[in-house]
């Protein structure tokens, strides 16, 4: 029993091996009044990757959660409501494109209907590297099991750029870099000790973004 508790303690300690770095760059003042909202969109123009919808949703949940939650319009609802202006081919890439978009009456009216004050563009991905070790599993008449050891490093690198729809300018950006090492020893059964890198990146970025929009960060 004592040994089992030691193992569980070690598992808990080792599974939290993630370091997260958050940087903020502010270019203008921000604030949100009652009834106003923001939308968080993932960048999907890159050929090699696209910002995962799950991560965008995670950040939106963090920003919208808690007693100080901000009203966040769901990404897909916004994309459908503003169709065809925010598709990968047509989405504004710079604030100059945003100015051109706001000259289209239908687009401007729809944004006003939703009370959108800020558009947040999320860009980035999680990459896996430094994979090492092997795990072998066998099964036979007498039973089965896995033996070995595996390890890998995950690096979540994301940037959030905030556009102000009043000034039609960028008011700042927040970047997050979360790195974590995961382990998978296998002693008959694999014991996953997974570093929650992307979850930590989401939580850190979301909370910092909430403070930024509120004008506190």
């Amino acid at each position: 029993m004592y040994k089992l508790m030691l193992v569980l303690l070690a598992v808990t300690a080792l599974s939290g091996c993630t370091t997260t770095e958050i940087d903020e760059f502010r270019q203008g003042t921000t604030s949100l009044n009652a009834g106003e909202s923001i939308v968080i969109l993932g960048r999907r123009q890159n050929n090699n990757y696209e910002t995962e919808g799950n991560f965008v949703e995670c950040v939106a949940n963090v920003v919208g959660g808690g007693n100080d939650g901000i009203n966040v319009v769901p990404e897909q609802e916004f994309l459908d409501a503003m169709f065809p202006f925010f598709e990968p081919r047509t989405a504004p890439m710079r604030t100059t494109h945003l100015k051109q978009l706001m000259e289209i009456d239908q687009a401007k009216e729809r944004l006003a209907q939703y009370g959108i004050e800020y558009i947040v563009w999320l860009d980035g991905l999680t990459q896996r590297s430094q994979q090492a070790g092997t795990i072998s599993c066998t099964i036979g008449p007498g039973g089965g099991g896995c033996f070995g050891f595996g390890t890998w490093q995950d690096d979540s690198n994301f940037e959030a750029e905030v556009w102000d729809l009043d000034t039609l300018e960028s008011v700042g950006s927040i970047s997050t870099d979360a790195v974590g090492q995961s382990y998978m020893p296998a002693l008959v059964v694999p014991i996953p000790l997974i570093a929650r890198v992307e979850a930590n990146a989401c939580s850190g970025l979301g909370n910092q973004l909430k403070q930024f929009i509120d004008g506190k960060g």
Partner: protein
Amino acid sequence: MLAGCSATTIVVDGSYPSPLVRKLPLTIGVYYPEELRNFAYTEIDDNSGKDQYIVQSGTSQLELFNTVLPALFENVVMLDSLDSLNTASSENGIDAVFVPEIAEFQLGLPQKTKLKVYEIWMKYNMKLSKANGDYIADWVMTAYGKSPQENLQSVDSGVQGAAVVAMRDLAASLTLGFTTVPEVNEWLKANNYVTE
């Protein structure tokens, strides 16, 4: 075992939002060729040479055009055939006839491309003619969609995701690009349907 020998059929099923654009003051007759209505793409297994996947997108393509065209034009008249054009034109006051044709379809699967995405690329030949059949414009449009490969995701789900993105890409291009096709723009201006 036997189920693994036949090709897997994937029926593209998506819903498309109505574009947020100002309608052109036109009555458009639309004819969908048989090849578009029943379009199906077959992916061949490189090793066995047998059919591996059949992607049926005809119904979804019609749904796409039936959403986009009524948002783009004031009136849309569906034509069962181009033979009935004269009758339909006199009854409905058709200004022009639009015929979309799918010219090419390509599918990229992660297991073949070694990329972690499903990709679809489509090429269309769009034709616009006057109600009497005289040529106005004939132009090519391409559409591209990709969907990231996720853990435990089925091929069906990945292909669906890429197909819907590609269809939305086509809809966006058609909606925003229709009046910028040079011959179309010239015809619209000559008939005072647009001023710029």
